[in-house]
């Protein structure tokens, strides 16, 4: 809202018509009339200034009652109504709709609660209740006197969406949005799409191949006419509000053009080898590489940091696709919705000292994701599970649950809720592949809810996976032999144990992804105390963020497995598409106005505004973003001059309501 608009609205107020108020006091059968003397209350209202009619009636919510309301408007030129009956939740809307039907703005109705707030709670004090009801009605009339019209505006939306993150949740959301006819810009910070799902060997409970499951989706998205995919891309700036965002994002250079045929010649001549991030360090990659064979996009990528600039790749490329001169690009898109599907990271267990993850001599302590990498069909070990220290098949495999979860010491009190399922899945696969090996899972509780998961747990027990209830205190290494032992107490039999661990697999938690702090602040969305993005309402709205128009899909809202992420993403896509497909947002303009003669540009209103709905331009002129505003009114007490006032909730209007309720005698303070 610009300054000009604000000023225009202020002058409109001054030419308002004379208030003509009708007051109706409801008996509600015995509910109100049994305690409150409704006749007396109606009588007292007659004498109030601007009241042209004050009556009492049996049931105001009945057809007759509503007609009384409407007739007062039609016949007496009443332009503000007060009904003293039940709560606003109960029938506030009934009466508001009723007056709208006869041409009055529905915000011109004031509901006074003399039932839940009065007659029902003061049954033993009829006199007190009546006196209170009289004051409540006077307060309501005072309030009604200065009520203003509130317009319901249709704001046109930009029919386009941005999806941040191309893991399974982001892909699902992008696909669903595109199928609804919404053009999608899909950005991914890594060089390939598919996210963590592509790193897995098998998915529970059916033990399907995740690459096979996700491939139709990744290919579908990559080829969809309505989806523009950008990899190596990250959001830099977000402006605007629901229905109309302007997003600027940055695309890092790939150094390889799209005519790349994926032949792999460049990789084979590259002299530099570093641990592969996608393979979780279980194999090496070159400085110019493709993360894995089925990666989409299939164009190779050059890692500038490790490249030594020998140019061998440039020389050998048969289609001259390698180009070191490529630069960072910036792109700006206008979208109506943003879906955040930034996913998660696997917790890094090196923080837990007694497990010695990552330390010298403890190479055989790995995480479940690393195990998945070894087991998977294209792994460097040819799907064999081998000890990283000496390449032999482990005879004794110990899995430790709740690493980084349910752990107050490292500050993650929550249960990830997925680790028991994938540990059991992997344990079963290990026992099937290596029947002579011992596989043990050390747990605190085994949590496998949902269809087919108890069955998975039972089948693992039947195949001989051993379950020990105890949280290991440390992984001990014999410095003379290099042997690892897991120290744990079997709390069911109360026996301290030292389990030989040829391979120790840590079931690490799901934690918020790297970079979520800056991304969250650019989007102006709130985070939970664990660091994930906070949903609007945990029960009723888990796919909406704290800011309208920005939706959450997948593990970014909290740890989930693939099925839950996909379902969550579908929900987010539907919400995101609604106002885009409709073409507009209908919003009641219950927003604050700024009186520029009082505003001193201190910016305190902007500081306290949680939905970030107050904008400032380079001339330090503050204005309200009508679409983002949530009508909370928090800006009002923050303003030192009272320049910003929420419509129909201004300091002035609230005072009118407060005075009668306070007893109405002004004090002798000067």
């Amino acid at each position, binding site marked *: 809202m610009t300054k000009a608009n604000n000023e225009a609205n202020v002058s409109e107020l001054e030419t308002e018509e004379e208030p003509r108020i009708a007051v109706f006091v409801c008996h509600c059968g015995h509910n109100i009339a049994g305690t409150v003397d409704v006749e007396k209350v109606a009588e007292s209202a007659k004498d109030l200034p601007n009241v042209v009619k004050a009556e009492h009636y049996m049931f105001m919510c009945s057809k007759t009652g509503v007609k009384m309301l409407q007739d007062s408007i039609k016949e007496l030129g009443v332009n503000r109504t007060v009904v003293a009956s039940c709560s606003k939740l109960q029938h506030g809307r009934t009466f508001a709709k009723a007056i709208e039907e006869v041409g009055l703005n529905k915000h011109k109705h004031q509901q006074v609660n003399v039932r839940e707030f009065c007659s029902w709670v003061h049954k033993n004090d009829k006199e007190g209740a009546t006196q209170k009801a009289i004051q409540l009605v006077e307060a309501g009339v005072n309030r009604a006197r200065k009520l203003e019209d509130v317009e319901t505006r249709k704001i046109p939306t930009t029919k386009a969406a941005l999806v941040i993150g191309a893991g399974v949740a982001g892909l699902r959301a992008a696909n669903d949005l595109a199928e609804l006819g919404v053009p999608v810009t899909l950005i991914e910070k890594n060089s390939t799409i598919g996210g963590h799902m592509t790193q897995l060997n098998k998915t529970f409970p059916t033990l399907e191949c995740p690459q096979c499951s996700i491939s139709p989706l990744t290919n579908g998205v990559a080829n969809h006419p309505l989806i523009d995919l950008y990899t190596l891309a990250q959001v830099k700036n977000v402006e605007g509000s629901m229905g109309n965002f302007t997003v600027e994002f940055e695309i890092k250079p790939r150094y390889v053009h799209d005519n790349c045929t994926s032949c792999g010649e460049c990789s084979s001549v590259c002299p530099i080898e570093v641990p592969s991030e996608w393979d979780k360090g279980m194999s090496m990659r070159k400085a110019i590489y493709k993360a894995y064979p089925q990666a989409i996009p299939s164009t190779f990528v050059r890692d500038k940091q490790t490249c030594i600039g020998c140019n061998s790749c440039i020389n050998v490329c048969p289609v001259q696709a390698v180009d070191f001169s490529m630069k960072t690009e910036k792109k700006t898109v206008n979208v109506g919705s943003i879906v955040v599907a930034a996913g998660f990271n696997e917790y890094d267990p090196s923080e837990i000292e*007694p497990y*010695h993850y990552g*330390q010298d001599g403890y190479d055989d302590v790995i995480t479940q994701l690393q195990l998945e990498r070894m087991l998977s069909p294209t792994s460097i070990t040819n799907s064999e599970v081998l000890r990283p220290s000496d390449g032999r098949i482990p005879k004794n495999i110990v899995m430790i649950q709740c690493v980084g979860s349910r752990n107050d010491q490292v500050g993650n009190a929550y249960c990830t809720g997925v680790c028991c399922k994938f540990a059991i899945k992997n344990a079963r696969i290990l026992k099937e592949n290596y029947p002579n090996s011992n596989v043990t899972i050390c747990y605190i509780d085994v949590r496998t809810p949902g269809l087919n998961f108890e069955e998975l747990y039972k089948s693992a027990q039947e195949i001989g996976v051993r379950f020990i209830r105890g949280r290991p205190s*440390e992984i001990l290494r014999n410095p003379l032999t290099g042997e690892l032992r897991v120290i744990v107490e079997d709390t069911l039999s109360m026996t301290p144990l030292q389990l030989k661990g040829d391979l120790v697999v840590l079931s690490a938690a799901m934690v918020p992804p790297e970079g979520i702090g800056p991304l969250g602040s650019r989007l102006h969305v709130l985070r939970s105390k664990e660091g994930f993005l906070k949903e609007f309402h945990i029960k009723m709205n888990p796919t909406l963020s704290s800011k309208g128009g920005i939706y959450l899909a997948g593990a970014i809202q909290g740890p989930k497995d693939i099925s839950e992420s996909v379902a969550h993403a579908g929900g987010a896509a539907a919400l995101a598409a609604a106002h885009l497909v409709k073409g507009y947002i209908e919003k009641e303009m219950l927003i604050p106005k700024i009186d520029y003669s009082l505003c001193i540009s201190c910016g305190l209103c902007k500081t306290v505004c949680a939905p970030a709905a107050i904008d400032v331009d380079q001339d330090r002129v503050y204005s309200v973003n009508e679409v983002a505003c949530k009508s909370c009114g928090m800006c009002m007490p923050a303003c030192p001059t009272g320049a910003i006032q929420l419509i129909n909730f201004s300091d002035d209007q609230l005072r009118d309501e407060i005075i009668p309720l306070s007893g109405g005698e002004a004090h002798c303070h000067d």
Partner: protein
Amino acid sequence: MVKEKTFAFFLGCIMPNRYPGIESSTKFMMEKLGYTILPMERASCCPAPGVFRSFNKVDWMVAAARNICIAEQMDTDIITVCNGCFGTLQEVDHHLKENEDHKVLVNEKLKKLGDYEYKGSINVRHAAEVLGYEVGPWGIEEFLVRKVKARVAIHYGCHLLKPVSVRGLDSAEKPSMLEDFLEPLGAESVDFVEKYTCCGAGGGVKAFDGNASMTIFEEKMKNIDAVKPDFILSPCPFCHLQFETGQDWLNKNKGTNYDYPVIHLSQLVAYCMGMDQKQTGLQFQMMGKDYIFQSEEIKQEEEVS
């Protein structure tokens, strides 16, 4: 303001009664390093962090606070060479500095014992960390007269480093404070299985259940014996006592043949700084009576100006 480079020397109980060699080694070493070491008059048992604390935590705090008050009245920090004394004094000092209610309670009780008022004006130090971090492996070199040539099984004990949140000295899982410090002295730390476990004496265990104490100790000695060090090094007289009497008990009752010398940090450092081995009192200990340090004199190089 506490006096600089001055310490009130808290003796504890075991060292002055059983191992006076450690006491004289400590004085020699600290004074050579330029510190003034003052006696603490009227100091009592710390009291022990295992037994006493488990019976009466409040009186344990009061008795410890009284010892701290003596140093406060002397305007110096406390230095001790015993993990147990360090455990009690440092923990009580830390706690009373943070918990106002307990400080008031303790001071009320202290009044009954004399003119004592705990103020929280000094710090409690252990010689191991003064050496390890303040003097440091870089700082000790100029004071060394000779180096030893020895493979050493280092035993940290329990109360020196733990609880990590209260002590704030080093990691309890993989500490390096002593190993780093002893390197210039020529002592090579030997890694052995379960290096960081308890000796079995503390926590009231030796007093309450001698068999349990020996079971724990037996396991520890087995692991140490597997690496055949030249000697065992510890920063605590109680561990020192356990290693000595424990080896003897195992020899008599379990048919072992242990004779590993047990050397306190102060004894080794004092020796390397020029003290005669006879002064360390090693010849009066139970184990390793015939052990003589294998040493190498260091020629102090002329300073190039």
